[in-house]
């Protein structure tokens, strides 16, 4: 009986090896959407897209079940190195920097970087050179973004970086930018979603999608290469891309090159080897990135100061209204304060920039300033309100007996004393605002944290950029805390 059970379990193991194998964890970003990876509209718990089908094909060839791992697009390289997944594919672009920091497969798809403009500008803007002095949008951390940075120097355009590929096109329609440069897969998808746009077919540049793995996973990468080559030969890839409407004449030519190179020199398209030390590379890259980090720090500082100024002015008005106003004013202001404090500032920024775009089309920096200012005004008003209420009643009575009007009492006695009480919490808020200002990168404002992220993505390491970024934030916040402490000492109110 026991012998029979053993025999059965042995049989099961040999017949269905996949059951005993660990799953192939594959990383991608479902926010990237169709045709790459997206949650199935019919069943959001499963993923669909050509990258999904390629991943499943590779898993099947390896005899392992496929398991999807959600990773933000900009973090795919970092996650590969951390070992969050075995292979990553999500429209990941081939680049020398990427090949140096992770194990990269042969390219499996060729795309063209193309320019999309509003229909009315079809003949005016045909190339990046035509867009001198104009704002051109793209997805951050991509080859297209590098092309735009190059064009900033060569053609005098302004590059605008987004965290997703939807808003570059919606902002193009709104007139916030004058063109979008992205790969043709994303451009075609945007054309289906929006009317009033036109894409020039000519390629500004050509690039490739690849599959990545942790740098030491060269054996796995070589097996993936073999599977991809076989899929090119037997038409599996063609079938998948045709199904998703992405097949074109560029692909057979790419496959011929990949398969030809494999026959002669396996290393020609897929340079192998361990990447050089990333920290060392980061120090080398530092002089190139330092100027942009410093100017991003200036953006952070200017934005924070301007937003704080707005918050202080509005906060004073709100606090005054809540202390002195009639019941209706007080109720309205209380609702404002509770709504602004009770909802995420990120949501407020989105609503102001994108939500209100149909009514008022604010430039990104102004929207960021207004968003942060309106949010922090709620916090400031609470500080001022409690500070106003903390001024002893005797001080106000002394002013009244002297014959000062209520307004004079507020201006000459109550507010100056309340300000001294409010100073310490205000400083805390300003330091918090300095850091919260990093949220405005979602509105395409490149401030310190965003610039650090660009730096880190490009060199493939967070260590050096992160340290540098932290130092810059500290350099801005520490003197401020110091100044506030000194003023506080000077103004310390005697306790009777």
């Amino acid at each position, binding site marked *: 009986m026991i012998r029979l059970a053993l025999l059965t379990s042995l049989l099961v193991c040999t017949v269905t090896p996949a059951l005993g194998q660990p799953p192939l964890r594959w990383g991608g970003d479902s926010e990237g959407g169709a045709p790459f990876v997206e949650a199935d509209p019919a069943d959001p718990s499963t993923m669909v897209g050509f990258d999904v089908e390629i991943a499943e094909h590779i898993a099947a060839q390896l005899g392992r079940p496929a398991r999807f791992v959600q990773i933000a697009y900009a973090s795919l390289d970092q996650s590969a190195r951390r070992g969050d997944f075995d292979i990553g594919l999500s429209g990941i672009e081939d680049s020398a920097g990427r090949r140096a920091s992770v194990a990269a497969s042969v390219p499996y798809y060729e795309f063209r970087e193309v320019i999309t403009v509003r229909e009315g500008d079809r003949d005016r803007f045909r190339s990046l050179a035509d867009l001198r002095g104009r704002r051109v949008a793209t997805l951050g951390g991509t080859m297209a973004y590098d092309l735009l940075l190059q064009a900033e120097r060569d053609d005098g355009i302004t590059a605008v970086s987004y965290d997703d590929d939807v808003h570059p096109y919606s902002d193009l329609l709104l007139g916030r930018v004058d063109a979008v440069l992205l790969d043709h897969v994303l451009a075609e998808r945007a054309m289906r979603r929006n009317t009033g746009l036109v894409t020039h077919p000519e390629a500004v540049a050509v690039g490739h999608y690849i599959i990545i793995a942790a740098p030491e996973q060269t054996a796995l990468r070589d097996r993936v290469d073999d599977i991809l080559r076989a899929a090119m030969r037997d038409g599996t890839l063609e079938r998948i891309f045709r199904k998703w409407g992405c097949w074109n004449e560029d692909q057979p030519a790419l496959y011929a090159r990949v398969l030809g190179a494999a026959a002669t020199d396996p290393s020609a398209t897929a340079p192998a080897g361990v990447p050089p030390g990333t920290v060392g590379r980061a120090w080398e890259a530092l002089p190139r990135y330092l100027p942009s980090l410093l100017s991003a720090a200036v953006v952070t500082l200017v934005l924070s100061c301007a937003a704080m100024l707005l918050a202080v002015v509005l906060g004073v008005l709100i606090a005054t209204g809540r202390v002195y106003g009639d019941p209706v004013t007080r109720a309205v202001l209380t609702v404002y304060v509770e709504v602004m404090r009770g909802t995420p500032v990120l949501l407020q920024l989105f609503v102001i920039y994108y939500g209100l775009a149909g009514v008022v089309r604010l430039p990104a920096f102004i929207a960021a300033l207004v968003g942060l200012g309106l949010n922090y005004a709620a916090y400031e008003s609470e500080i001022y309100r409690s500070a106003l209420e903390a001024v002893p009643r005797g001080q106000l009575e002394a002013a009244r*007996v002297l014959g000062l009007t209520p307004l004079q009492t507020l201006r000459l006695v109550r507010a100056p004393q309340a300000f001294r009480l409010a100073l310490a919490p205000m400083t805390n808020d300003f330091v918090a605002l300095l850091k919260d200002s990093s949220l405005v990168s979602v509105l395409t404002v490149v401030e310190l944290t965003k610039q650090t992220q660009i730096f880190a993505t490009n060199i493939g390491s967070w260590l050096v950029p992160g340290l540098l970024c932290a130092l810059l934030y500290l350099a801005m916040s520490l003197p401020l805390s110091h100044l506030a402490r000194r003023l506080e000492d000077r103004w310390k109110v005697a306790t009777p």
Partner: protein
Amino acid sequence: MSATLRVRGLRLWRGDRQILAGIDLDASPGEVVALMGLSGSGKTTILRILAGLERADAGDIQVPKAGMVFQYHYLFEHLTAMENVCLAPMYVQRQTRAQAEARAGELLGELGVGHRADALPRELSGGEAQRVAIARALAVDPPLLLLDEPTASLDPARRNDLGDALKALAASGRTLLLTSHDDDFVRDFASRVVILAGGRMVEQGDPRQVLEYAQHEETRELLQVERQRKLGR
């Protein structure tokens, strides 16, 4: 405007409790009138009503413009002694800064705190703060000066200085109304004492008469409490 104070039938309730049960009070220029009574007798409340900080429920009041010196001074914590004194002349009377500072300098000098003009309230002693507070009240030249427990924070030497200063102010034609626990001070410097108990006026008259030969039960009780307080100190 006359400097004479005239109060008739002053009444005040807080909830069910009657704080003032019909007070009649007169005071003329040159007088230093002291209100005495146990805690809760209503003396501070009378000053606050005369200063316009509280409203009475009933009564007829003829009061000239009053300056007030609070028991805890309530100097503006963020302003120097000089700025405290100049605030009302500049913003209520619209004097120029130079005018206000000249007058404030005189007042601070007369009260013996001219050398403390640039000090902040927290840097002043109790006696100095009180004299700055008196200067602040006098800067707008009120015919009536109200002082709540002016001797509370003073040692005996300072107390006599204050008494002399108050007498001088009365002699210059002002009306002074003060509250006090200190029967020695009242005896030495007030021209009239008014004894209050339970929101009523019990007796009034020359302090030497009233305090030496206390006619009323309430007055004797008040003096006894005060003597015990002094012995315990």
